[in-house]
């Protein structure tokens, strides 16, 4: 199989993978009873009436975790080709990779020292 065929497979795969879980939901829509009423449709929050807006404000810590994750994720753009080509690279490439990882570890150490990774 050539490259385009491989990805055609993935394309068809994505399409079919969407259809299959949709089928039971569609089936359930036909089979299951539907008797909605105001109480039933209420938001379920421990049986107590919902207070205020759902979009309460969240702590910034979630964002910090997402941020650190993003940085490490972007790092993978470079580390994967590096690892892939590693068999034909020399010590210089190891040094380059080491420096690259080391610089990013700096950021992690900074976050650690500043207690940005704590769940407070």
């Amino acid at each position, binding site marked *: 199989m050539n490259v385009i065929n491989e990805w055609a497979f993935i394309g068809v795969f994505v399409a079919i993978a969407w259809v299959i879980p949709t089928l039971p939901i569609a089936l359930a829509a036909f089979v299951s009873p539907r008797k909605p009423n105001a109480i039933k449709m209420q938001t379920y929050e421990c049986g107590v009436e919902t207070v205020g807006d759902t979009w309460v404000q969240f702590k*910034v810590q979630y*964002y910090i975790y997402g*941020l650190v994750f*993003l*940085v490490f*994720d*972007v790092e993978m*753009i*470079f580390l994967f080709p590096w690892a892939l080509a590693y068999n034909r690279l020399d010590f210089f490439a190891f040094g380059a990779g080491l420096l690259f990882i080391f610089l990013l570890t700096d950021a992690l150490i900074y976050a650690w020292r500043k207690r940005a990774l704590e769940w407070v």
Partner: protein
Amino acid sequence: MVPLWMYLLVAAALFCIGAYGVLSRRNAVAILMSVELMLNAVNINLIAFWRYLTPQNMSGQAFAAFVFVIAAAEAAVGLAIIISVYRSRRSVVVEDVNLLKG
């Protein structure tokens, strides 16, 4: 294969949509998302030119990879600034953020 100009057309359209969003939206997060669209249009262009003009040379892909880094850094710092501004001004509307105005 699909000719090059079709890719360029898609990228140009995406870039202009992004530019419109940046210029016209009031919400800072929406502006940031529009910037992401524009960066993405740049990436489509870079890779299309790479594929059609210099497929043996890695430069196009390498540049696109660096654009990813820029996009990520921009999103990270930009959103952090928005959160910080929101904390002090309780607003994400760019017109309300006029601290630097004389």
